[in-house]
């Protein structure tokens, strides 16, 4: 495999068209102006530094999700989350129109929100607000702020938000396409993300470290750890290739505690191994754990329990950051009070756990880490084999051939033949493997575990069981047992 950054002249050749795609692009024409602005941001507000410090101290930082249409309201929201919510790290979640580069609709959303006196957009339209609007936000708070979105073509958003003082950028060429878009070609999205990573690599070369976080949970729906791990590692390799140095890989809570702990332990190990083997060094790897990304119970007391279990796993799994849900998750976007309540509940668990070491070296976790490792290796070697030295090509071919396949994803470029189901202890296993290149021994284990559940419930393993599992947690249980 050959790793080489996008040539700077190729980057610059693309740039005018990127900046021309919306009028606010012209304000960021000088990259050096953005760099100068970033140099003036205090170290305490640099996301990469905060993550490195958390790693050194063995701490878990808390970050919510949040974003509204108007600048003043967004500032009020973030200030509330850092004061009342005691968030360590702040987000700026981008609205869904901006994510699809539909800036005219975002503009209408801004107008309608002004008229309605409340946000009608599900996030902050950073491109429309432009560089100066972003600076108003990042200057108004004391904590580092990250752009969180779901944008397949995030080039203009990156240019504007980095010049606007954000110091971390979520996403990746797979994780912000396959779960977030319907018709975006795999290769096109990967190349657009090379641009984003190259821009961040350029900031790095000039002394500004911007944290990069591939989106771990993918569809957030019964994704087996090895699938999200393989994709996180591939996106990590692509980011490192472009010169990114501060990398945070993510994993979304599955629900079975031992499987989650095994997933976190193996993600850190496997990522380091693959990065070193590819010849990368001198990067800073941290982990983020997402509290349950699937459907939540409507009852807020029950929702707090889901949040608290996630907080426990984040702590026992020793991750540097956890993304916190709110007790209003079931009804969509929370009020600021509810968002802060999720943070407080998480903080309570983390503080109680802070000085405790949970032993994760046991026979079950070893069985699971070993399994994840073999599964990830199977996928990765098949992607590399399809790559002909070009990783982008390898990933394109892997999706076309079903070597990579994300359960329940909307993209037409994803085969969608993989069906996961929980086993009798709630571990996420495979019911249908599609074309994933997994050996017979691995599949025999999945099958055996599902047979156990089938026997216990006295019903065959079918799509009904998958549906039951998807809604189980919102109905108060981990496993979707028959009534």
């Amino acid at each position, binding site marked *: 495999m050959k790793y080489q950054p996008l040539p700077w002249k190729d980057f610059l050749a693309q740039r005018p068209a990127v900046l021309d795609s919306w009028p606010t692009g012209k304000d960021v024409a000088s990259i050096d102006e953005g760099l100068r602005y970033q140099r003036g941001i205090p170290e305490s507000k640099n996301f990469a530094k905060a993550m490195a410090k958390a790693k050194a101290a063995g701490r878990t930082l808390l970050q919510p999700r949040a974003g*509204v249409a108007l600048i003043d309201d967004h500032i009020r929201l973030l200030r509330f989350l850092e004061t009342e919510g005691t968030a360590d790290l702040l987000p700026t979640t981008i*609205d*869904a*129109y901006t*994510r*699809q580069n*539909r800036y005219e*609709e975002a503009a*209408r*959303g801004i107008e*309608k929100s002004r008229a309605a006196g*409340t*946000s*009608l*957009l*599900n996030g902050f339209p950073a491109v429309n607000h432009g560089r100066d609007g972003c600076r108003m936000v990042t200057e108004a708070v004391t904590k580092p702020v990250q752009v969180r979105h*779901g944008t397949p073509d995030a080039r203009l958003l990156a240019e504007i938000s980095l010049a606007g003082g954000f110091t971390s950028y979520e996403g990746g060429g797979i994780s912000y396409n396959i*779960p*977030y*878009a*319907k018709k975006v070609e795999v290769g096109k999205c990967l190349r657009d993300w090379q641009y984003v990573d190259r821009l961040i690599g350029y900031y790095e070369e000039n002394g500004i470290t911007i944290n990069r976080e591939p989106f771990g949970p993918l*569809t957030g*729906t019964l994704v087996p750890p090895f699938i999200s791990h393989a994709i996180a590692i591939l996106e990590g390799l692509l980011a490192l290739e472009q010169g990114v140095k501060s990398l945070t890989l993510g994993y979304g809570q599955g629900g079975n505690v031992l499987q989650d702990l095994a997933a976190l332990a193996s993600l850190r190990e496997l990522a380091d191994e693959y990065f070193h083997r590819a010849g990368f060094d001198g990067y800073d790897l941290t982990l983020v754990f997402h509290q349950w990304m699937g*459907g939540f119970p*409507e009852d807020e007391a029950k929702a707090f329990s889901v949040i608290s279990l996630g907080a426990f796993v984040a702590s026992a799994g020793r991750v540097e950051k956890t993304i916190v849900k709110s007790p*209003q998750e*079931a*009804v*969509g*976007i*929370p*009020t600021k009070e*509810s968002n802060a309540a999720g943070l407080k509940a998480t903080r309570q668990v983390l503080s109680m756990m802070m000085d405790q070491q949970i032993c994760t070296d046991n026979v079950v976790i070893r069985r699971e880490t070993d399994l994840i490792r073999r599964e990830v290796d199977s996928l990765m070697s098949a992607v590399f084999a399809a790559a002909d030295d070009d990783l982008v090509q390898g990933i394109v071919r892997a999706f076309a051939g079903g070597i990579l396949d994300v359960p*329940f*994803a*909307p993209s037409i470029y994803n085969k969608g033949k993989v069906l996961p189901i929980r086993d009798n202890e709630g571990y996420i296993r495979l019911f249908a493997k599609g074309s994933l290149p997994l050996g017979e021994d691995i599949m025999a284990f999945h099958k055996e575990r599902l047979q156990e559940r089938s026997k216990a419930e006295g019903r065959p393993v079918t*799509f009904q069981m998958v*549906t039951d599992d*998807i809604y189980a947690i919102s109905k108060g249980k981990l496993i979707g047992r028959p009534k």
Partner: protein
Amino acid sequence: MDVPRIVLGVIGADCHSVGNKILDAYFTEAGFHVVNLGVMASQDEFLDAAVESNAGAILVSSLYGHGLIDCEGLRQKAIERGLDKILLYVGGNLVVGKTPFAEIEKKFKDMGFDRVFSPHDDLTEAVKLLRQDLEDRKR
């Protein structure tokens, strides 16, 4: 007996795909012919599909909070396209922020939707209502 036809999809820039796949499987299993547009379907795509398939109902999902903006004008457009009698259902997390369901329901009914569903409504009940409403429209 005629197989009732319905158009299903997630409107706007919304990419929530999981529930859509389940609704497709569920309504198909319940005996409907489902034309599923998947995620990120525009109003025109819904209406084109309804005209082409001669559907009796359009089932719109919205999970990301932009429901009000995305659904505005769908009823008027349906009438313009000659779909005077078509049933319009909508369901999901329809607005930004926790709002009493009665308020949400009223807003969408005022926009011309026949029924409004919360994320916690039971699918068996929805199937029953849809069958009944389709029968009533025939008369």
